[in-house]
């Protein structure tokens, strides 16, 4: 009796595993038909149903998570799963059709290069928020403002003491991000204009909370953080004399910012489209987006393309 129950359980488990396996295999090629079928919208009454997955950027995840919970509370026929995993994972998965929305800190064209450039073309960009970054230092270094050249010298190791950039006599400790990080790519592109170096003795962390902790505790430390992570334990320095604030970003005075993207494969439809529309609605943009420390996309007076060219809206 016992054995047969165990046997049954094993069979069920084996079958479940096999089913999962074959489903994944199907997803490798193109969008899974069952998923897209379940998204078909019931447009008659204006309400939608379906289930989909949004995966990718950890920087965007808190916003998507919060908004999706609100959206699901309003539309009980829709089920949304939000998975963190990194911008690269999100873009790969949406391009392969494994998930329906890929969250990314960078333009798809910047991640999917060379052999993968075709994949980027099939993706449709939805810019849902703007995130700005500021260089932050330990409170003891005595520097309020850094120019672009000074930042470049610091992050490429040409300057190793704070007294050379107007601070006190103290060794500079770099707290950088790993080479693949979207936050680092943004900071390098718009604040430094050049690649930074993985210098010996520098610290690298990916999680913003850990970066803040290390910068606040390590004497002479400098790093960079999204505005939502700034607090009293660290000091945000001005960039070329401009303070990192939401207003300065919106007016285009402060250049170190990036879009938060939600990519879909082809034009979105059904529940995915309804959710993205909700994401861009005034309710979310003026509410959740601002509340969580991002900058609303409709407040931006400037826009920027893939190559970094800024123009007025």
């Amino acid at each position, binding site marked *: *009796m016992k*054995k*047969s129950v*165990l*046997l049954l359980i*094993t*069979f069920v488990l*084996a079958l479940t*595993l096999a089913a999962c396996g074959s489903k994944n295999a199907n997803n490798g090629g193109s969008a899974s038909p069952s998923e897209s079928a379940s998204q078909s919208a019931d447009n008659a009454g204006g309400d939608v149903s379906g289930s989909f997955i949004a995966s990718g950027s*950890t920087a965007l995840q808190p916003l998507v998570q919060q908004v999706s919970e609100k959206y699901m509370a309003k539309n009980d026929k829709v089920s949304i799963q939000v998975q*963190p*995993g*990194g*911008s*690269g*994972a999100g*873009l*790969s*998965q949406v391009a*392969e059709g494994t998930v329906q929305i890929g969250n990314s800190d960078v333009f798809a064209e910047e*991640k*999917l*290069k060379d*052999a*993968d450039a075709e994949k980027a073309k099939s993706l449709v960009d939805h810019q849902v928020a703007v995130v700005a970054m500021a260089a932050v230092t330990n409170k003891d270094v005595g520097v309020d403002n850094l120019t672009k050249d000074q930042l470049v010298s610091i992050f490429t190791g040409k300057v190793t003491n704070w007294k050379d950039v107007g601070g006190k006599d103290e060794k500079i*400790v770099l707290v950088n991000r*790993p*080479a*693949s*990080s*979207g936050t680092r790519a943004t900071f390098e592109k718009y604040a430094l204009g050049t*690649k930074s170096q*993985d*210098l*010996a*003795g*520098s*610290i*690298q*962390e*990916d999680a913003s909370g*850990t970066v803040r*902790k*290390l910068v606040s*505790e*390590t004497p002479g*430390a400098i790093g960079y953080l999204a505005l939502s992570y700034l607090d009293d334990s660290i000091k945000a320095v001005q960039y070329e004399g401009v303070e990192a604030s939401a207003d300065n970003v919106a007016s285009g005075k402060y250049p170190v910012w990036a879009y938060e993207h939600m990519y879909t494969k082809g034009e979105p439809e059904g529940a995915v489209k309804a959710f993205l529309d909700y994401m861009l609605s005034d309710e979310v943009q003026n509410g959740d987006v601002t509340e969580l420390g991002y900058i609303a996309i409709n407040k931006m007076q400037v826009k920027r393309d893939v190559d970094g060219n800024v123009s007025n809206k």
Partner: protein
Amino acid sequence: MNLPESRSTADPAPPQTGKIAKHHLEEWRGKAYVYLCVLLLVVIIFSIVVFIASRGLTPFISQGVSIKEMLFGLKWAPEDDTPVFGALPFLVGSFSTSLIAALIAAPLGICASIFMTEIMPKTGKSVLQPAIELLAGIPSVVYGFVGLSVIVPFLRHTFPGQGVGIMAGAIVLSVMILPTITSIATDALRSLPAGLKEGSYALGATRWQTIARIILPTTMPALLTGVVLGIARAFGEALAVQMVIGNAPHIPHSLFESATTLTSIITLSMGNTTTGSLHNNALWSLALILLIMTFLFVFIVRLLERRVKRS
């Protein structure tokens, strides 16, 4: 147990042939169940190895990275215009953190198990053993956070440098591998034939002489097995180490300078890279190296076990 009985009353067939068939059926069911489990296990292990190998070998086969450059190169710059993949800093970091962790944890763990088996078996079993086993249940992110909040500041104030580095990683790891080393050592000491100890005492040896000259030499291969398994565990630990080691892709000049390990570079970068890109595949190559190292550790453990059997 009820099922066959009720069937035999309902079944008009002669009871003797029914009984034989039931035995056979039971035999067959048990066999099928065990074989199925083993098959599933083999398939899972095999597919993991195949998957990691197929991804990890791509940079060498079709993307123009040489194995020599990967194993002995000093520079890791995957996002440069001409990407360079030298993984020696990661190998050095992984080996030095796990070896130093074992150097710290092995004496502690072995002494604790001697205390638990030879000196105060009762207190050891009721207090010390549960306490050490509790260490195994703490999630690694908690170890990492404690390391970042306590050990890193302590090292920063006591030694030159920023606190992060191989030493911080090794200290955190040594606590994490303590349960592995202790429980294997305790099992080995407990399973020692009582006659050996009694013989030693009968010859007039003191307790310390018995421990140092009889017990430790006899159980040495088993103790080493525990240490090697501890090193293997330290080698594969990712999160806690990543939080305290600093992650600069360089071979550090001191134990208190930012360094990195195979596991920490994989966890830091895997999510940020796209599937199929050279950078991503290079990370899979590191995973393959990690897998091969783990196989090596298992191989060493097997060798040690053979020595235990022979003695």
